[in-house]
């Protein structure tokens, strides 16, 4: 059994709960052992790099150091923002011994640089290769989906690897294996407004509306995402968008891990599909 370190990040215990549920369920069915980093702390998200550049590195550094100390060489960070902060920090540390020394001083913890951070897409693709592909017994019957990478699963030089930042395709093989039909669309890497959900709601409403509208125009029956911030802006805020007179939209927003879990025949409730704001149980009904 493969052991992979796990950094759920703060959202996955609250607003992004389905992502945590579906990741854990999927790992179990694929026979991967997820080992949560003990005592992990918040990555700092947008707030830290907005106000204090040392803190923006020191917070992920502590988590990387803990993972190393706990013997983890690979760590899954399903939240796109956590992934970007953790891996971005690991990349910067590997390039700058000065920064590494400074962070060791600030955190009073050593870190040799042995931890590799995995995104949700890398994790799913890895599970597929290691046996999950043979367990997808309940394919989704050609459900038309728009794969949505947003910002941080597409951009960040040396953070997102092996894909095209403008036209990424990393999710497509997994979605096809799950029996989905990927629709071509224009907003796969556009920003939803991210962390401005509360502090600049108008911007989030505008940007997220444009994303939903384009997916609908492309004929998608669901948007597939890997980011809890994108999810809450597109799912939880869909009613705010409709109330603003835009739309009206009625488009389920599902996590990549939920789709894979459904295709593996897992109960939709176990994946958290019943917890969405926009009904996502209709996606589960497509599963054969």
């Amino acid at each position, binding site marked *: 059994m493969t052991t992979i370190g796990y950094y759920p990040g*703060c*959202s996955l*215990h*609250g*607003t992004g*709960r389905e992502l945590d549920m579906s990741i854990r369920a999927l790992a179990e069915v694929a026979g991967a052992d997820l080992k949560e980093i003990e*005592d*992990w*702390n*918040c990555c*700092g*998200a*947008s*707030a*830290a*790099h*907005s*106000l*204090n*550049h*040392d*803190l*923006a590195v*020191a*917070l992920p550094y*502590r988590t990387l150091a803990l993972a190393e100390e706990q013997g983890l060489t690979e760590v899954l960070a399903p939240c796109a923002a956590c992934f970007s902060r953790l891996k971005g920090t690991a990349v910067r540390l590997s390039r700058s011994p000065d920064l590494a020394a400074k962070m060791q*001083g*600030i*955190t*009073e913890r050593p870190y040799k640089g042995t931890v590799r951070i995995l995104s949700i897409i890398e994790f799913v693709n890895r599970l597929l290769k290691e046996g999950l592909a043979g367990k997808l017994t309940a394919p989704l019957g050609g459900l038309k989906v728009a794969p949505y990478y947003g*910002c*941080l699963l597409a*951009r*960040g*030089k040396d953070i997102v690897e092996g894909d095209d*930042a403008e036209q990424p395709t990393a999710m497509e093989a997994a979605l096809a294996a799950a029996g989905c039909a990927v629709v071509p669309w224009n907003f796969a890497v*556009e*920003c939803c*407004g*991210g*962390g*401005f959900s*509360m*502090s*600049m*709601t108008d*911007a989030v409403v*505008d*940007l997220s509306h444009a994303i939903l509208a384009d997916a609908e125009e492309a004929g998608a029956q669901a948007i597939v995402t890997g980011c809890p911030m994108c999810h809450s802006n597109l799912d*939880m805020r869909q009613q705010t968008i409709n109330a603003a007179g835009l739309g009206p939209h009625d488009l389920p927003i599902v996590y990549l891990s939920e789709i894979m879990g459904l295709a593996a025949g897992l109960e939709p409730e176990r994946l958290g599909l019943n*917890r*969405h*704001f926009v009904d996502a149980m209709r996606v589960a009904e497509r599963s054969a």
Partner: protein
Amino acid sequence: MTKTAQSTLAEKVRQATDVDVAECYQCGKCTAGCPMTRYMDLTPSQVMRLVQVGDEAAVRRLLGCRTIWSCAGCLTCTQRCPKDLDPAAVMDVLREMANREGTVPHDLKRVLKFHKAFLKNVEYAGRMSEVPLTSLYKMTSGDFFSDVMLAPAMFLRGKLPLVPRVIPGRKEVRRIFKACRHREDEP
């Protein structure tokens, strides 16, 4: 290669980010791709230009602008820059300076308040929790009523845990905050 003398601001940016703004030739690609320009008073390429200029008027304009607080950190500018510069990181440096100088435009203070509430929560507990974060944000921003209707619906879906998340190593996290805090800075 001989370089033109840099403004003090450009030098500060270079030290913090390794970005040499002198290399920006104002192609405007960052501006063209930015999803937030409609909320900005300076475009991202104008920000880069003003950092190059870096005189007193330019610094005042930059530290009081709306743009740095409206940047969503989506990295489109950084990804597309043909000179491999990093406008998003430049925005980070300017935002940090503007916070320290207290030059945030009045109606964008809520963005700053949100960041501060977030960090306060993490400094105290080691992790962010929705209830302390939103309560603190609402108290400090005066934005009491937005989204209150979302709370019951979130709660019903198990997305609003009422017990805040607190980690054993929170004292260590607090010490890290303290070590990172600039002397004249808060929070």
